[in-house]
């Protein structure tokens, strides 16, 4: 009951004209940027981040969240129409979405994607409304030891899951932590690793780093010969896109199933929308009514993937707001945005900033409806958006990166930092180092260091404190298993191979 009252108060905040317009603008911009192939949700949010500077914290974060949210919708469009996923979570959408477009049903595929995203988002937000405060209450019981263990789990599992090589995930994560230690020591306030530079003394600025790592590195990547998308010489009308009754019925089952699964994945620290859409699709392929036809261009495939990725995106807000732990790189950008506005996500956010927290949750409901309306109304114009050539996008995005980095720091240092980060990000990506863990670690490292040092003060220097408290011990065991999982997997495979070899002989 209390939750409903707080949520209604949140709607009071979300539905003020300024916040409503900010959510609508965020939804529109997020959809357009998300629809452009090759940019992706992370780069999209990073590039649009400076636009939120103008607002007060509540409005700024509402706009940022709407951008993030709408990006998830937009990512599927290029998957469906030209077989080039706009971002990671949209990869699974292409499997059935593009064959649907090829069969002459591009509009229906887009409508399915939008409607499933809406269903996924709605279920995800409802679960967030329920679990967010509960997670925050649990978080209040966490001391520095438990928090340090949880943060290590959140960082490591993401590093482990992404990329083709766990070693590289760990290098990225540790690099992010190292960069975060530059500047003033957050515990005692003494300068560190500034190497005599006044700029470094202030620490590495978050926004230029994000714009460079995700926006500018993307521009450098765009210069490479790209996979040519399929032709988009098709006509799209809203009338031809609307699903009939039986099609809507076919969509509902997979969308609802995937929404619940996606939300759970989103809530888990270190998972995220890409994992959500993958598992949503695979589950539908195993248990769905039309499982044999999956991959041939059926709407169940699109529904499962899209509902899962949008619900995961919504679910990821639960650990972000209540524990201060983002589930993905994009979540890390949002966390950085919150910190930039002086808001510290964590168990106390629900208590100390109820107007902001519930306003944000309510605004997600509003943004979800606005995004659906905008998404359906731009269907006829999507072909034009997708036809914007990379040749034009490269100089425009470069210009936006330069302006955004300058405006974040009001100095050329910001631009230089952005360019250096972009250069580094490009080379890391080329060598298969996942850069989302770097960003996540960069954002989480100050909290980790504070709680880590406090734990050692409590224990007077003994690391055994992490094994003496049940929650922390459980988390550390999970962490060790995660770290050792590739080794264990290799060991099992070696044993299996040797057994097969013996049997064959």
């Amino acid at each position, binding site marked *: 009951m209390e939750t409903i009252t707080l949520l209604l108060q949140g709607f009071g905040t979300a539905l003020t004209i300024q916040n409503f317009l900010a959510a609508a603008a965020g939804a529109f911009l997020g959809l357009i940027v998300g629809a452009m192939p090759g940019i992706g949700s992370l780069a999209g949010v990073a590039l649009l981040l*400076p636009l939120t500077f103008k607002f007060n914290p509540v409005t700024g974060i509402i706009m940022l969240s709407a951008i993030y949210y709408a990006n998830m919708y937009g990512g599927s469009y290029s998957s469906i129409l030209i077989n080039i996923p706009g971002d990671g979570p949209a990869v699974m959408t292409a499997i059935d979405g593009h064959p649907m477009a090829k069969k002459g049903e591009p509009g229906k595929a887009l409508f399915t994607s939008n409607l499933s995203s809406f269903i996924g988002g709605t279920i995800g937000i409802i679960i967030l409304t329920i679990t967010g405060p509960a997670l925050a209450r649990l978080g209040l019981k966490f001391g520095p030891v438990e928090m340090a263990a949880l943060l290590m789990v959140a960082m490591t599992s993401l590093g482990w899951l992404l990329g083709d090589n766990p070693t590289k995930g760990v290098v990225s994560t*540790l690099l992010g932590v190292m960069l975060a230690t530059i500047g003033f020591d957050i515990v005692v306030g003494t300068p560190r690793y500034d190497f005599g530079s006044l700029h470094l003394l202030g620490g590495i600025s978050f926004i230029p780093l994000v714009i460079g790592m995700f926006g500018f590195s993307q521009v450098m990547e765009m210069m490479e*010969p790209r996979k040519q998308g399929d032709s988009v010489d098709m006509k799209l009308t809203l009338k031809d896109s609307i699903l009939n009754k039986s099609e809507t019925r076919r969509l509902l089952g997979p969308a609802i199933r995937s929404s619940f699964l996606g939300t759970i994945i989103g809530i888990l620290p270190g998972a995220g929308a890409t994992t959500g859409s993958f598992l949503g699709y695979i589950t539908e392929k195993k248990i769905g009514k039309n499982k044999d036809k999956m991959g041939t261009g059926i709407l169940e495939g699109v529904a499962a993937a899209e509902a899962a990725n949008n619900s995961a995106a919504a679910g990821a807000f639960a650990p972000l707001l209540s524990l201060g732990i983002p589930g993905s790189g994009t979540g890390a950008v949002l966390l950085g945005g919150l910190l930039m506005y002086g808001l510290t996500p964590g168990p106390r956010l629900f208590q100390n900033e109820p107007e902001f927290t519930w306003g944000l949750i309510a605004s997600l409901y509003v943004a979800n409806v606005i995004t659906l309306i905008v998404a359906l109304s731009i269907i006829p114009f999507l072909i034009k958006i997708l036809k914007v050539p990379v040749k034009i996008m490269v100089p425009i995005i470069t210009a936006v990166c330069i302006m955004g980095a300058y405006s974040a720091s009001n100095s050329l240092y910001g631009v230089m930092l952005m360019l250096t980060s972009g250069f580094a990000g490009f080379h890391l990506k080329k060598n298969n180092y996942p850069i989302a863990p770097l960003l996540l670690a960069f954002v989480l490292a100050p909290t980790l260091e504070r709680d880590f040092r406090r734990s050692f003060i409590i224990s007077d*220097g003994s690391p055994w404190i992490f094994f003496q408290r049940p929650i922390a011990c459980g988390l550390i065991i999970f962490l060790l298993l995660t770290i050792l999982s590739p080794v264990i997997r290799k060991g099992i495979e070696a044993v299996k191979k040797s057994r097969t070899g013996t049997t064959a002989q």
Partner: protein
Amino acid sequence: MKTLKANTRVIIPSITFILGIIWVVYGLNNYGWWENGPGSGFFPSIIGILISGISVIAFLEGRKMEPPQYIKASYYPFLAAFATVGMAMIIGFFPAMFLFLQGWLKLYEKFSWKKSLPISIITTAILYGVFAMWLMVPFPAGFIYNAIRG
């Protein structure tokens, strides 16, 4: 297509290894490991040790792998952005941005004036509207403008 050769599969872990060592050395010598509790160098030194260790594994793995291919064109936006920032200090941010957009579209992409000019003008106008007018960011006007204004 012009390509560049550099085995970044071993260069990157070498850099992270060196950075790790620097973090440990500075952490232990300059910032302190333990003084009535963990010192400023405690946490960064642990991270430095970990990254140096894992970089050795990444280096050994990288030696066995084929290095990635780089094309020269990937670095053009980087160089152009540097040149634009330099130009911005002389003629101001927005004229520099316009020249960058126009120069890129005309010289690199070989667009016609008819096609490139509207794109450059509209983009610069939008950037000016958003960043200078709406967000009110004080961009440098450039040496020339400052000299004329005295």
